[in-house]
């Protein structure tokens, strides 16, 4: 029977630790406060890892199927230089470059079309529609155009982040109130002064909303594009080749790097948002 563990002790220990952490969590969550908000999710994550480790050891799950967290940690420490190389290739060169270009272009275009109500009325529905499309499908096309190196990955990311940022930014430029714009006019502000002193700051909360959505899309785009052809370095390349060689611990190591990079990217945007839009009600906690 598959469901009878080979080493029940590991399973029981894991479940016991899990229950203990869960009990601790209920206590912390009941208290509330700043410290609890940080501690509770960490404990929850640890509990999951312990459960994972326990199940793998108890059932003697083959490392070809699901390696234990401890085994993955050991492997990560062994292949750090390789992981770093993949990280630089995919995240820094592919995702971040494309993200900056795509988001920059979207902001520029939104300012341009904001001057023409006709273009705005036409581009917004189209942009909304395109933002919902599986844009990921253009990855093979762009890889064929721009070659296997990071340029094609950056191009995919540019296209993926462009529309979410554009749609949010156009909405943001319309966010300043009539009264505020009239006030600017009474002070004799030029178009550019009104743009930089009122409308761009007022658009920031919307812009960051789009930038946050785009940050996860950027990583997805960069990794997917590598499935369609890449040099022999990069996270997507490593994942697809190591799955073929049954090197599951390396794949999980890459997933850990991807998770870390994705969370850090998102976190960085959130920190910048907090710093730049401290005046917005959603930031006053």
């Amino acid at each position: 029977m598959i469901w009878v563990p080979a080493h029940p002790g590991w399973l029981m220990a894991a479940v016991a630790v899990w229950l203990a952490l869960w009990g601790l969590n209920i206590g912390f969550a009941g208290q509330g406060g700043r410290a609890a908000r940080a501690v509770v999710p960490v404990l929850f994550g640890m509990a999951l890892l312990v459960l994972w480790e326990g199940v793998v050891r108890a059932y003697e799950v083959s490392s070809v199927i699901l390696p234990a967290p401890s085994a993955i940690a050991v492997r990560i420490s062994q292949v750090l230089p390789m992981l770093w190389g993949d990280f630089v290739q995919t995240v820094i060169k592919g995702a971040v470059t494309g993200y900056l270009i795509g988001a920059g272009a979207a902001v520029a275009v939104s300012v341009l079309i904001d001057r023409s109500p006709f273009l705005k009325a036409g581009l917004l529905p189209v942009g909304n529609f395109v933002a919902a499309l599986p844009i990921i499908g253009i990855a093979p096309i762009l890889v064929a155009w721009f070659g296997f190196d990071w340029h094609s990955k950056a191009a995919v990311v540019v296209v993926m982040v462009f529309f979410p940022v554009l749609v949010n930014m156009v909405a943001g430029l319309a966010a300043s109130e009539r009264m505020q714009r009239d006030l600017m006019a009474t002070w004799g502000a030029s178009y550019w002064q009104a743009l930089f002193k009122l409308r761009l700051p007022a658009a920031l909360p919307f812009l960051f909303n789009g930038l946050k959505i785009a940050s996860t899309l950027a990583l997805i785009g960069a990794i997917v594009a590598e499935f369609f052809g890449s040099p022999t370095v990069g996270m997507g390349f490593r994942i697809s080749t190591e799955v073929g060689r049954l090197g599951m611990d390396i794949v999980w190591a890459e997933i850990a790097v991807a998770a870390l990079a994705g969370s850090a990217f998102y976190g960085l945007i959130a920190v910048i948002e907090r710093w730049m839009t401290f005046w917005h009600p959603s930031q006053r906690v």
Partner: protein
Amino acid sequence: MTRFGPVLAVVGLIVALWYAAAVWMNAPWVYDQAARANQKVEFGQLLAGTMAQSRPVLPAPHQVAAELWKGVAGQSVTSKRSLVYHGYVTLQATLYGFVLGIGFGVALAMAIVRWRVMEASVMPWAIISQTIPIVALAPMIVVLTNAMGIEDRMVPKAIISAYLSFFPVLVGMVKGLRSPDQMQIDQLLTWHASSAQMFWKLRLPASMAFFFASLKVAIAASLVGAIVGELPTGAIEGLGARMLIGSQFGEPLIMWAALFAAALLAGGLIVLVGWIERLAKRRMGGAA
């Protein structure tokens, strides 16, 4: 007309730009052919030559439309060349994943609204789960479902699209279930409503607007999940697999047709969800 005019103008502009780009990007091939045959190329010949290549760098819009039409109407529906067939395979995975994602998202939202410890411990991880690029996880999901003895290729794809679609539902439902204000809650308490009655008669109906708004995001995410799920899994059926095949065999027309089929599918699904929303609103007595 006032609504559609600008949209049509923008779409027309895009198509015009596309044609110009097709001429520009396909021209080198025409010049190359002409140089080999020792001929000079007139402008008219150049135009014609860039519009009808079998393996263009950028196919012209009418070529894509023709290929799409051939794939949809030119084949019997069961044929492996039929885009209807491949679209159906992807649609199935999308819908299974969508339903799975809705179920999971709603259940989690209910638990989060009910118990405080759930919110504190699960919510941050739900956010982190979406910052993990799903494509990195996708191959592992395939390996794991295989190891559990599930042969059906549908299952990993459905799990991947559920992974992408549960999050918007979760966020929308948490917001929606919390949307009744204190006054309304107090009103029900004065009527001595149990917590189950509170849920069914106040919180759930109040959350419906949020629910449908997030469904539209979720169905699009779900389709992306199904397509991404086909890429690294060695699938041979489905729109994602079709793109992969087009890429590997250097057949840009197949790739573009699959891409547009996916776009049409996405548009259709979003319209369908909007339609269901209107229907549900009318049934629940809201303003349609």
